[in-house]
């Protein structure tokens, strides 16, 4: 088991290395750098001035040496101030070292955000905290509801309850966040007026009034999928021999479902819920932009829209890490929950 986890962690590190390199390459494409230079300098700068801005801020160094600097395996060089000729900080708003030091992601330095004029860490981690709160409430709503729907539907396959709930969960998987968000806002904010169509105030304090719509929108897309997986697993379990035996020895249907079927039927949904996180990540971006909630997704869109290189790299690192770690947890958890699976 331990060696399995270690090997998986090794693959994970390799994947992250490859992915960050790809992201680093794509973000640092020439057109993107030009856009960054234009947005960071004053209006009407000539092409030479743009180029010298890029050179002065260290964007024209060799690709691999820059990637190494970002990663923290190559010492980060301070830039030379063109006026004084002395080594200077790359950006005045965050404390880059003035002498060459190893200062990259591995050392915990995520770099400078050119859009928000601060260090990436001071922008990214509060945003992650805000998204964490959102995710927590989404899971609190999504998991019990979807498991309940799945179990009720799968308990008696082909019954009227089953068919109704199945069509309902298909409908919910057909509703992406940007569709359900609009529909919910129209119903609950415009017509009924009971909920707030913007979650901008939720950064200062979460209330039922401003937080229900984002949570509901994000949960609804996942509910259908998890419910369908739970239903499939429940249907399979209900056809097993031991369920029939339990029924034949005279146990009531309810107690068979609760005591015998449920535990076995919930193994598969666990994996599905874990693998749902990458989907939630995309949903988070949509929902946070739609409801103006200042979290991780909002930061990602701002970073991408303004070509904020270090911030976008930080965001991708975090999101890739979340995807991979949830995959690992789902695999290990599955082996742990299901005694029939033995990991070698």
């Amino acid at each position, binding site marked *: 088991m331990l060696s399995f986890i270690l090997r998986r962690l090794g693959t994970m590190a390799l*994947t992250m290395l490859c992915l960050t390199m790809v992201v680093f390459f794509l973000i640092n494409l*020439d057109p993107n750098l030009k856009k960054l230079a234009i947005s960071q300098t004053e209006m009407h700068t000539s092409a030479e001035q743009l180029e010298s801005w890029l050179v002065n801020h260290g964007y024209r160094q060799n690709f691999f040496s820059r990637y190494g600097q970002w990663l923290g395996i190559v010492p980060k060089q301070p830039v030379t101030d063109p006026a004084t000729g002395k080594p200077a900080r790359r950006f005045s708003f965050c404390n880059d070292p003035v002498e060459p030091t190893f200062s990259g992601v591995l050392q915990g330095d995520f770099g400078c955000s050119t859009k928000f004029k601060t260090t990436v860490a001071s922008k990214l981690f509060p945003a992650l905290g805000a998204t964490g709160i959102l995710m927590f409430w989404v899971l609190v709503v999504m998991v019990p509801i979807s498991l309940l729907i799945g179990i009720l539907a799968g308990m008696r396959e082909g019954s009227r309850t089953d068919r109704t709930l199945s069509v309902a969960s298909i409908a919910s998987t057909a509703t992406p966040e940007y569709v359900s968000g609009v529909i919910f806002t129209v119903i609950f904010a415009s017509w009924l007026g009971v909920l707030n169509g913007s979650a901008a105030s939720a950064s200062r304090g979460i209330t039922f009034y401003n937080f229900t719509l984002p949570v509901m929108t994000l949960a609804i897309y996942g509910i259908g999928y998890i419910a369908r997986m739970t239903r499939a697993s429940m249907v399979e379990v209900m056809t097993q021999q031991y369920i029939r035996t339990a029924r034949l020895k005279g146990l009531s249907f309810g107690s068979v479902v609760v005591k015998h079927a449920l535990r076995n039927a919930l193994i598969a949904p666990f994996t599905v819920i874990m693998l749902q996180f990458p989907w939630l990540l995309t949903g988070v971006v949509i929902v946070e932009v739609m409801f103006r909630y200042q979290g991780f997704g909002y930061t990602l869109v701002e970073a991408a829209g303004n070509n904020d290189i270090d911030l976008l790299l930080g965001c991708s690192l975090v999101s890739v890490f979340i995807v991979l770690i949830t995959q690992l947890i789902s695999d290990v958890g599955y082996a742990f929950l299901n005694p029939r699976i033995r990991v070698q």
Partner: protein
Amino acid sequence: MQLEYIGAFNVVLGVLARFWPVWIALVLVMGASFAYKKRLGLYGQLFDSSVGIVGVGICLFWLFTAIFASTISPFNPLVQIPIMKDALPGAIEPQSGLVYLFGGDKLARDVFSRMVYGSQIVLIIAPAATGFALMVGITLGLPAGYYGGRIDTVLSFLANLVLAFPVILLFYLLVTPGIMETPIPYAMAGLFFLFPIIFFSVLFWTRYKKRPDRLYILLGLTLIIGGWVYAGLVFDADPFRIIHIDPNQLNIFVAVVFASSPGVFRIVRGLVMDIKTRDYVAAAQTRGESPWYIMLWEILPNARGPLIVDACLRIGYTTILLGTLGYFGLGLAPESPDWGTAIKDASRLLRSFIHPALPPTIALMSFVLGLNLLADSLREQSMKD
């Protein structure tokens, strides 16, 4: 100047009337399918369940809407008639006397016509991108599952690499205006569009190796048609000027194929690993058939059930992806009538006007719902056999 309005009931009637070519086509196709359902195989079996009928109906509805878009829509989706700015549903346009059935948006365009034309964009890109993703996924998934070993390790690692990207990040990196100045989208298009040609060439080669008369015709056709489409799509150098794709549409197309082919790859790989243990595969191996013949002519036909179901679901998912792209304003032109862009524009103004938001949302939702229902009943029918 005051606009004149027609009532809600007349709006409903007007919408139903505008869709007249769709209704005729629907009745013809559904009637014919229903009459001959015994002879239509899997497609005919769909008409045995109500879920299947509803699914087929919705999908055909949007298909015919896309085909007859120019007849159905009363206005040009891009033309702005200033007086109709933010007009409510049912407003009569004074010049032509035609009605803005679902009202006007903030740029004074007809919401109804935009919704109808939006279906064209979705119904061209989504199935085509899914088709290419299937080709890529099948061509790579077959050897990975069949041979296993190192080729499987490498391909699976690459697939997991792409799958570990959150889709939205992938799109922000791949579908930016800046990337059009680099050769990356064209290189990726050149790579992906090669797969169908490879697939069909190998398909015919393995089957008709011993029958040159057929082989040369089929191979020639594949190479001519494939090369023609390839030249048109990748280099925009179609000698007859029929196949043409805008650079930003190509970019979207490539990004969507890139995002969804690893999923197909994983499914195909899993199916192949399951099917290759069957007896008929062992029999073919004993006959001395080549590995690619076994993969393409023994394993693939037996994996078609799950693949068809997956393709249906995937077209729906691609539609959602296109909507996401439109919602973030990536790739598609800002005035494009596609549903995602329309939802983005309308959702910013929900506080003042809600009518421009509802038609595209409901359109997108119903189309994806139709595909999902179709997939669900296909799955049920194929499990019965």
